[in-house]
């Protein structure tokens, strides 16, 4: 008779695979994926489509693609950021309040695995649904209206930066979820960070602005169209990668001390 094979993982990775599977299932084995799959094209590509309908009468393909990229990356950046916060705000707070986090932590799973599984699964899924999927649709729209596509290497580059931008807000919200006890402050602080940034950008020194994600959204359409992009853009990109690592580290530290 075949016997059951016991799991061998230990240390931080104990339970990671199972927890990632559970997180992915919360997207893909419920209707959540379908809602996002419908929402993002409506929110981002719907506006691109309306503009396309207007422009096809008088616009040139160059102007049209240019306009499409501006709308896509501006809306994608802002809506995506809000979406990342909304989708992640309850992921840790909710489990702590409901008691499922305590239940899971009675199984042989590490607390690091619990947080990292949420980060990995939510990032991958959210990027697929809010970045990659609308990007494919916008390419379709470019082809439909103008019979041409934006330069793919630079479009891919801009998409990558947009993805890093969204992951930054996912990590920030996840970290806030380990620091606060309810959803309100989690969403409030994360959104406040973005709104505050839009106001502060005009008042604080340039070098500080370049350590934040705030200027990125404005610059993405230029990156996508391969307009001469100043080297400065890589500074906030590098900074938010570092910030993301810091946020996740804080989340791991805080959750490992949490009394459930």
């Amino acid at each position: 008779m075949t016997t059951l094979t016991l799991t061998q993982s230990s240390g931080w990775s104990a339970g990671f695979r199972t927890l990632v599977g559970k997180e992915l299932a919360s997207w893909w084995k419920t209707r959540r994926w379908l809602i996002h799959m419908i929402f993002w094209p409506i929110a981002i590509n719907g506006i691109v489509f309306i503009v396309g309908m207007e422009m096809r009468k008088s616009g040139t393909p160059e102007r049209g693609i240019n306009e499409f990229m501006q709308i896509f990356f501006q809306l994608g950046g802002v809506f995506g950021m809000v979406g990342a916060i909304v989708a992640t705000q309850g992921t840790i707070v909710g489990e702590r309040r409901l008691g499922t986090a305590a239940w899971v932590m009675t199984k042989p799973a590490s607390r690091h695995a619990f947080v990292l599984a949420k980060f990995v699964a939510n990032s991958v899924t959210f990027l697929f649904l809010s970045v990659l999927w609308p990007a494919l649709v916008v390419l379709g729209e470019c082809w439909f209206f103008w019979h041409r596509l934006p330069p793919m290497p630079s479009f891919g580059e801009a998409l990558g930066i947009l993805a890093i931008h969204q992951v930054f807000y996912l990590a920030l919200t996840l970290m806030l979820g380990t620091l606060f006890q309810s959803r309100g402050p989690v969403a409030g602080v994360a959104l406040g960070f973005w709104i505050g940034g839009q106001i502060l950008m005009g008042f604080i020194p340039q070098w500080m602005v370049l350590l934040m994600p705030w200027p990125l959204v404005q610059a993405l359409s230029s990156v996508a169209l391969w307009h001469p992009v100043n080297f400065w853009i890589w500074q906030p990109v590098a900074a938010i990668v570092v910030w993301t690592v810091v946020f996740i580290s804080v989340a791991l530290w805080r959750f490992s001390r949490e009394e459930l």
Partner: protein
Amino acid sequence: MESDVAISTRDLTKTYRSVEALSGLNLEVRRNSIFGFLGPNGAGKTTTIKLLLGLVRPTRGNATLFGMDLAHDSLSIRRRIGYLAQDPRYYDYMTARQTVRFTAGFFYSGPHREVERKISEVLDLVGLADKADRAIRGFSGGERQRLGIAQAQINSPDLLILDEPAASLDPMGRRDVLEIMGRLRERTTVFYSTHILEDVQRVSDTVAILNLGRLVAQAPIGELLTGSGHTIYDIELRGAPASAAAELRTRPWILAVKEASTNGAAVWQVTVTDDAAAEAQLLRAILADPAVEVVRFGRKRFQLEEVFMNLIEGAAA
């Protein structure tokens, strides 16, 4: 060889801000026992369980489970434990089978068919086989509790920790849960907290009583129910027992004769100081009086409720 002790705590203490939820707990739970952990609400039962599961850190003291230190071997300990929370919450979008499958993922990596067989086995054990593929969103309290036992059993744990397993259940649900516990005792140690004394008396073999964060008693249930100090005999008589009572009071080994009457019969509680003398002479001494007839005679067996109330009130006084 592993020790015979499943749980051992030494001076285990937990303080929340200035409130001492648990104070210097020294507990020993033998393997394969059904250990009832009793106490009124707020006694520190759930805090103790959370400490044993590593969900909260002790302020002072330590605990070992199967000889492993809780502070350093938490993962290894959790591999050998099954846990059912007081108010079990699961992911509502999952079915019962998916919930147990999710739990199984922490313990088994395959083969797939064997894991599925194990999942079906535990669902069957708790009587959820026919509801296994229903979303747990619509489960009743009793069904959630059964699911809780199923998921706690998936790793065939050496120790099952149940926090108030029958508290929210109707009498049928309670009976079912106690039956399941009885079935599990052959293969596992069951440590469960409760304030339903009737259940404890039915299934436990050892009991600890906690009050205001302090342990007030720990003993095998038989010992606890026999009482401590002097032996008391419980005797029911018919006839005119007044002279027999007076005669008994002259004996040096009789401390007290407490008389009462129920439905026309006299009921005595005779407290003795010498067990051997009582065993040899007490019944004879009563029967020597031709005016009385003995209907019932035996050592008084306390109800757990009496013991519990005495201990709790004693601790409070």
